[in-house]
């Protein structure tokens, strides 16, 4: 599937109707999501015919993108049941099959090595410090091939250090820098929308 087509399809997905600030629910926009999944497949062959898990899936934009990119099996996990309801409707609308699960990412202990690739847009850890690294730690335990994740560009050095020193990754590389458009979702946001620079990372566990 071409990048443009993927991005177009993802633009039709429903997003959070009532985002929860404590969970840092920001939608993964079609621009970012399509580039993440497209790069994972076309540069590394990590999606098509693979078992893919979408951590903190929210409305499952990345999971559905993986399924559209012909992942063989997709599992979306989120702690918020309302998001999973939207994810479920989104999957039906797109006519793709994905499994969904209501679960905390912390403490997840799946039997390995069934999952090939984890894709995620984790909470940035602004509200709940360290949650981004919790996600990464669990993802690296579950994935046997690769983990794709988005993190604020300002945390680049920190992430590289922790991934290599504490999580023993074989490889940690920033594939590209993307602009993440965060619309005004919450009352405490003063501006209409904010552009945040995020890195698209690829980790090899």
């Amino acid at each position, binding site marked *: 599937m071409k990048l443009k087509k993927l991005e177009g399809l993802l633009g039709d997905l429903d997003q959070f109707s009532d985002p929860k600030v404590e969970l840092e629910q920001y939608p993964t926009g079609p621009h970012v999501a399509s580039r993440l999944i497209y790069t994972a497949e076309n540069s590394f062959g990590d999606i098509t015919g693979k078992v893919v898990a979408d951590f903190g899936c929210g409305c499952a934009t990345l999971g559905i993108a993986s399924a559209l990119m012909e992942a*063989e099996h997709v599992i979306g996990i989120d702690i918020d049941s309302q998001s999973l309801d939207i994810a479920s409707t989104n999957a039906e609308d797109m006519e793709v099959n994905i*499994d969904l*699960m*209501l679960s905390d990412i912390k*403490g997840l*202990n799946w*039997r390995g090595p*069934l999952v090939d690739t984890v894709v995620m847009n984790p909470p940035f850890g602004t509200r709940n410090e360290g949650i981004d690294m919790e996600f990464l730690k669990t993802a690296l335990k579950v994935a046997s091939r690769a983990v794709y994740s988005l993190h604020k560009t300002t945390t680049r050095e920190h992430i590289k250090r922790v991934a290599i020193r504490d999580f023993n990754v074989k490889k940690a590389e920033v594939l590209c820098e993307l602009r993440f458009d965060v619309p005004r979702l919450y009352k405490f946001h003063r501006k209409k929308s904010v552009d945040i620079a995020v890195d698209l990372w690829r980790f090899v566990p």
Partner: protein
Amino acid sequence: MRLLTHNMLSCNIKGVTNGYPLTIEASKWMAKEVDFNGDFLRNIFVKIEWKVLIEAAKVMGYTDLPVEVDSSMLNSDEFLQKFHHALLEIHVEEGALICPETGRKFPVHKGIPNMLLNEDEV
């Protein structure tokens, strides 16, 4: 939930050491046809806990999987079709997953297992 997902799930209550496999209780299930991918099945075969898959499929009334298996069967189209059906086409819709050690039930509703823990289980 497909049986491929079930094959990797275990109970994550703190202190539980034998939380795998989760027993399935199903009051509703369905089969959804998906494209057959022989290469995927041949690759994933060694990673599947076969007995767990057989037992799970039986709960949903599917008893065609052979008990004894070895990799030579991966050349048989008939075997791969059965494996494909059990692993990817059967979905648990309503019911529960039960921890083998504690008996704790994790409900499955609209195909979505609820694996959230209570505060005293974390």
